């Protein structure tokens, strides 16, 4: 089966950086996510927004990657926000308590 590897593109937004995620957030996403975060964090932003609008699949390995990213950001005192989560993944972020450690912005699709 074709795996849609994650594409992550970084852009600036005020005092923060936005990482737009497209594709699947699974084990294969690690490299792209790490690189994107390094790029986003390089300018010492106040916060980093993870935009999940175009992320169609997040599995438990993807959750683990987000946990890793969040741990890194906390060490660097960078706030992490989540944008564009579907209701389903928003619920998963709540169940896993990721939502306790990152701001969940209003979802763009339900």
């Amino acid at each position, binding site marked *: 089966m074709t795996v849609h590897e994650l594409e992550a593109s970084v852009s600036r937004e005020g005092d923060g950086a936005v990482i737009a995620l497209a594709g699947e957030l699974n084990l294969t996403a690690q490299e792209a996510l790490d690189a994107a975060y390094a790029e986003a964090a390089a300018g010492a932003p106040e916060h980093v927004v993870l935009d999940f609008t175009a992320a169609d699949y997040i599995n*438990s390995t993807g959750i683990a990657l987000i946990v890793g990213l969040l*741990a890194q950001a906390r060490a660097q005192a960078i706030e992490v926000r989540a944008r564009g989560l579907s209701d389903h993944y928003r619920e998963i972020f709540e169940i896993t308590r990721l939502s306790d450690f990152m701001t969940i912005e209003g979802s763009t699709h339900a």
Partner: protein
Amino acid sequence: MAALTKPFHRLRRRDRTEEATSAQPAPATTPTEQTPVEIAPNDPLLAYFQTAPEAVDVEALELDSPALEELKAAGVKLAVPLVSQGELIGVLNLGQRLSEQDYSSDDRKLLDNLAAQAAPALRVGQLVREQEAEAVTRQRFESELEVARLIQQNFLPKELPEMAGWQVAAYYRPAREVGGDFYDVIPLPDGRVGFVVGDVTDKGVPAALVMSATRSLLRASAQRLIEPGEVLARVNDQLCPDMPTAMFVTCLYGVLDRFTGRLRFANAGHDVPYVKTAHGVEELRARGMPLGLMPGMDYEEKEATLAPGDSVLLHSDGIVESHDAERDMFGFPRLKDTVARASRDESLIDLVLSDLAAFTGPDIAQEDDITMVTLKRSAGSAVPGEQDGGVLAELSLASEPGNEREAIAAVERAVTDLALPSARLEKLKTAVGEATMNAMEHGNEYRADRPVLVRVLHADGHLRVQVSDHGGAGRLPPRESPDLEAKLEGRQNPRGWGLFLIEKMVDEARETSHEDGHTLELVLRLEGERK
């Protein structure tokens, strides 16, 4: 005439007693007892004695008989046959009278009376001895039968597997002498099930031993080879070198795919099974030699598809070879008629047994083992999936990263008709993806030869998704509740969310271990859940 060769048909002659000899020595006679004279079964003297219930004057008798010559040579004057119920059981032989006079007619009458009373008494004694000897033989025979029964019972299945959408039943009744019948139901990977009915020629302990060996070889090959023809060919090759002469095994082996109803089968000279369908009775024929005769045999493989409501009868020759009081055989046509009369609700086994009992009558001892295995596909219903025993989908996936997406897609397609609310569906998809990943990674260690089996079932208001690995029993992945703080502080691996998520996504998640590996069953209760 066989009885005549027994030792008690020896003729004994008592000559003069010691006292008699000392009182009045007689010339040309040996003292005391002489070697008994034996009468061969074809000696005319035998027939003569049997038809002459009186004392016989030996010297006057003219017969071409070696035994008679021996008697004469031994100085026997008078022979009194001891006959009981027309059978010669002994002879009283008398030599010369002490007075050296001829035996008088009074002497003869006395002797005849004596013989008439002695013969039945002697016969009773002989019967008692025979009985004692027989009892010893019978005891040995009975304990051998007991051993044969024990072996047989030990190697028959203790219970039959539960199969959703199928009714499996088996019946086994050994004859008194315990034939070599056996049957087996073997769970196989990917939801398939193997069915065996076999019969070893011969009876008793040797047959039971060959039966147990055949059954073990079948079980071992069935797991590895799957295809019934290959399984029988392999078992045949393994049995041949050690098979006692003049013994062989007939055996039918079928593999059922319980999701599709496909039954692939091969036959090593065993009685042909019958299938009862909506259109009548069909025979499942496939060519093949019995097992254990010659190595290198090929076994034809055939296939039948069992539709909902169809039944199969696998049986041993003990049924068709049963006789009635007139020695007529039950036979294949009668059995086929019985199967044809089977209704959907009645047990086929009960029907065959009652027809058989009506045919043989109540007082006929069972001649051979009677064995039956029946397999019935449940009739359809209006609930989606129910016509397939509740199975909406089944698929086998290679253990490769990313393949959980295929499982998710397949489950989503399978439950379309159930019109789950989208939130429920999304949760189910996540749970299926996580369960499949766990099975591929922890159970199968991403090995190419270990597929993940995913089954979707719908019955009784429940949707069940079963995800099975082939990682062997006994190694459930360790379970640790994920603690996000600990993970963020690096005290816990950031991973380990799978089972935690699964349990939050579905109403129930049940983990079971089986011979092959583990199955995680995800359950959604569907009551009142239409959109």
